[in-house]
């Protein structure tokens, strides 16, 4: 890549970052008025959260079961099957719960947000609001942004609980780990800091994924292709950003 092309890529990235930041400031400015009308926010929590429940629970169950299978195989080599519960709980709470939920959230709720807002743009609904002297940032963007941020930690908590149940199902019911040991070891080794790390990660990922989804939808080219491309960008950017943020957050919590 030539130096000029590199400069253009850099300038483009900085410009995009600036646009996202300005968009974020606009959305944050409308979060107060949006919270004053909780019906809109609750509706969006339902859209982003409740409608993602099945996929989150199903994925959590199988992630927990796989975690137990691989965990017991590894731990058995050191004669430490008793700490399977600890390994599964910490893995889910600190890492897999927030990250996998964020990736699923981006694929389910994120794409839905982007395409919905993008379609509103393409069918002049956002312009119609502007002409009616109603700020679409307040009515459309802010409630969805808040809904996503609130829904994410709830989804992560459900993912963790179902995942732990799945790990218990395989470890205790299938592999014969003692149930008392499984739960008492887990209770003893998991601290509030571990839970806190999961909460911080889920909030951060929820913030990032929802911001990307709402931004991409709001700024989508108002055509079928434009909305499709915006939806793709949402998934890709959310997934990559989630993994990058995860690295830095994990390092920060060490």
């Amino acid at each position, binding site marked *: 890549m030539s130096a000029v092309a590199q400069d253009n890529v850099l300038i483009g990235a900085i410009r995009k970052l600036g646009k996202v930041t300005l968009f974020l400031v606009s959305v944050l400015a409308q979060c107060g008025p949006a919270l004053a009308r909780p019906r809109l926010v609750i509706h969006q929590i339902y859209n982003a959260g409740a409608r993602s429940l099945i996929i989150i629970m199903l994925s959590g169950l199988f992630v927990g079961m796989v975690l137990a299978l691989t965990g017991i195989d590894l731990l058995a080599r050191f004669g430490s099957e008793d700490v399977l519960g600890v390994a599964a709980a910490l893995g889910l709470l600190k890492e897999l719960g927030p990250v996998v939920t964020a990736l699923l959230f981006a694929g389910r709720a994120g794409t839905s947000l982007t395409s919905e807002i993008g379609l509103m743009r393409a069918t*002049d609904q956002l312009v119609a609001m*502007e002409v009616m002297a109603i700020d679409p940032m307040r009515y459309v963007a802010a409630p969805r942004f808040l809904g996503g941020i609130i829904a994410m930690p709830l989804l992560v908590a459900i993912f963790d609980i179902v995942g732990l149940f799945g790990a218990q199902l395989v470890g205790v019911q299938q592999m014969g780990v003692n149930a008392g040991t499984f739960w008492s070891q887990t209770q003893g080794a998991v601290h509030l800091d571990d839970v806190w790390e999961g909460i911080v990660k889920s909030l951060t990922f929820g913030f990032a994924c929802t911001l990307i989804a709402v931004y991409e939808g709001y700024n989508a080219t108002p055509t079928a292709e434009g909305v499709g491309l915006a939806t793709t960008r949402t998934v890709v950017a959310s997934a990559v950003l989630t993994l990058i943020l995860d690295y830095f957050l994990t390092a920060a919590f060490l």
Partner: protein
Amino acid sequence: MLSNASGAAAAGGRRPDVPAPGSASDDVIVDVRNAHYGVPTRQIFKGLDIKVRKGRITAIMGPSGTGKTTLLRLITGLISPSHGNVVVWGNDLATLDRQGMYALRKRMGMLFQNGALLTDLDVYENVAFPLREHTDLPEPLIRTIVLTKLHAVGLRGAAYLMPSELSGGMARRVALARAIVMDPEVLIYDEPFVGLDPISLGVILRLIRQMNEGLGITSIVVSHDVKELATIAHDSYLMYDGKVAASGTPNELAASDGEVVKQFMMGGADGPVAFHYPAPDYRQDLLGGGS
């Protein structure tokens, strides 16, 4: 006699119940002055001058792609001219902040070409939407107003249908009910007659006229349906090549000798308004084998 936008005063054919354009400058509600506007691919306006007077129905006509809808976006402040001014109720839109712009827009209503109904709300809620956002009216009063407006467009019975359950014409009528629900002083119609059956078309025409005559609502109608506009418009502007090609009453435009006006009013394929997009020679293109 035809005139350009800056001298839109004209003679015969006007309705006696409204003052003639140019009779007083303070009755000008919308004044587009020497507006220039372009997109990266082309220049849309090259010095556009249009005046909309209080209490009148002003028709904006022109071939496809001349920027009629873009003009409406200029008037509503959704976009700004690169050069020139758009003055609405004496306010230069370029000088207004967001609050000022919103205060101005509350006095306007706009009917979009595709209706632009909010797809997650039913018909009733779509019409009630501006009332809920801008007023603290009690629910029974909102209901009365909404049903009154829906009745006016003949869709009271469709109040609880979703936009996806409406035909194109019905959606446009719901959008009209929404546009008038706040009793605006100016109503802007973007291609209100496209795709309507004769009955709906007649109803919309009648509504535009009734709102103008009965309520004194100033109307700006963008359309290329010359026949329909001729029956309701007091003033007409014909846009071509980024400027006003002609203005006057619809009758004056119909009687014009101007080539652009004649071609447009008569629907001729030959004339200054090219039917074909610029292309290489037809014979060469066909026989060239795609080379």
